[in-house]
């Protein structure tokens, strides 16, 4: 049995690897090195390696990634705090729900990136505007997931606690909240992906550093190597932070195995 499993894994590796290799080779052949709007895979690789130490504009590739991540960090944490609090308020208090939910539903369909011009008008072209846009991007999933989780807590758990004489406040902290946490994590992951996508968009619209800025500059300079390098960094970083989130979830809520 074990032999069969490793055979399949080898097959996957060979087929998949061959396909990627073939893709890279064809790409390399089709493009003349040094041409205007196109770059070969080798040129892209060269660009990345070169700019790990030398600067692209104001900082190295690490620097740009750092800038983007720091913006995500600020907006994300603010969104988590505000979003979870709002969702809990809306789920626990009927009055809050009636007042706030329609407003939320009104603003929800507007894509975070559509807030960019308004954010720039309100907050200028520096960091505050970007924090705001990322906040909007991450806020919605936090609110929606936390709210859904809070509303769907198993009534039987609450009833059982009530029956045993638990005061309402304790019910909230010991029964409702732990039941919601897995759902909050689900929202946190979606929010993180959204935040990462939004920061790229915000940086492309108006910035002086960051990975979004880097690929935009590449477009302006017709430097495809820079663009593709930036895209690679964006993809890898996005993948890593998502994996980090999943790892955190696995270890922080050991008591619950959520269906993937």
């Amino acid at each position, binding site marked *: 049995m074990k032999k069969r499993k490793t055979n399949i894994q080898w097959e996957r590796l060979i087929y*998949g690897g061959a396909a*990627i290799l073939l893709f890279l080779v064809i790409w390399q052949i089709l493009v003349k090195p040094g041409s205007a709007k196109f770059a070969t895979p080798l040129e892209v690789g060269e660009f990345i390696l070169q700019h790990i130490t030398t600067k692209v504009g104001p900082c190295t590739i690490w620097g740009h990634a750092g800038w983007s991540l720091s913006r995500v960090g600020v907006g994300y944490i603010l969104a988590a705090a505000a979003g979870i609090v709002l969702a809990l308020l809306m789920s626990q208090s009927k009055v809050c729900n009636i007042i706030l939910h329609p407003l939320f539903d009104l603003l929800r*369909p507007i894509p975070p*990136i559509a807030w960019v011009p*308004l954010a720039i008008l309100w907050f200028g072209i520096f960091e505050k505007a970007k924090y705001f846009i990322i906040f909007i991007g991450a806020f919605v999933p936090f609110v929606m997931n936390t709210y859904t989780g809070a509303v769907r807590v198993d009534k039987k758990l609450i009833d059982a606690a009530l029956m045993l004489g638990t005061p309402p406040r304790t019910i909230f902290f010991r029964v409702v909240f732990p039941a919601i946490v897995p759902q909050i994590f689900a929202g946190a992951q979606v929010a993180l992906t959204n935040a990462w996508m939004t920061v*790229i968009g915000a940086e492309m619209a108006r910035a002086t550093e960051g990975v979004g800025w880097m*690929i935009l500059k590449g477009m302006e300079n017709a430097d495809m190597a820079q663009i593709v390098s*930036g895209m690679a960094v964006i*993809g890898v970083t996005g993948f890593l932070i998502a994996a980090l989130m999943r790892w955190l979830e696995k270890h922080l809520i050991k008591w619950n195995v959520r269906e993937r």
Partner: protein
Amino acid sequence: MKKRQKIKEKIFSLLSIAGFLACWWLITDVFQLANTSLFPSPVTVFETFVDKLTNANPDGNILGVHILNSLLVVGIGYFAGTLLGIPFGIALGWYKKFEMTVRPLFDIIRTIPPIAWIPIFILWLGIGLIAKSAIVFLTVFIAAALNAYTGITSINPVHMWAGQTMGASNWQLLWKIGIPTAVPMICTGLKIGFNTAWTSLVGAELLGATEGLGYMIQMARVYCRADLVIVGMLTIGVIGLVLSIILDYLEIILTKGRY
């Protein structure tokens, strides 16, 4: 009883929105607490909306043209993306060899957010219709393929065995068991694909376009017209919502009788 409660809730929702608008209006027009060029009153926003229906300033087109332009781009990209993405996803789920070969490439492309493709598409294809449609196409393709793939791989093995026992060919298995099982997931993919596509489109228009709603709000910012920006944002939101609801109805029609 329940119906009355629902009507009550709807009335309260409307009252809440009305209250919000009233507060907004009070803050801006009546008490003048905010800088009205940055924070226009709802009355100004409404007036701008009506005005933009016929006024081509300051970006060169009336609201209707922008809306049509955005819809056209989304339509082309969406249509092409689903047309190619769904069969691709089905093939990915159905044919093992195909999956083993193509999946890693697909996964790599998938990790890059659609917005990050905008610069490279603009570099290659310019700032016209083709580049914007290409970005929408890519976004929708990925979403449709992924969901079709998930749909096919969620086929109940028992159904497959039943079909095989009765002597169905591979092709029949695909069409009678595989695809019907995948339809709900495909519908989910259609909806998710649209929402991401609408977002990508706004992003693409913000950066490189000469018409469209994203372009309109970008130009409005350049001219410091916060009222026009808000009109644009609300239009984007409303149209996105309306099309989303249409897709919801489409899903209900397509999955009638399924559990």
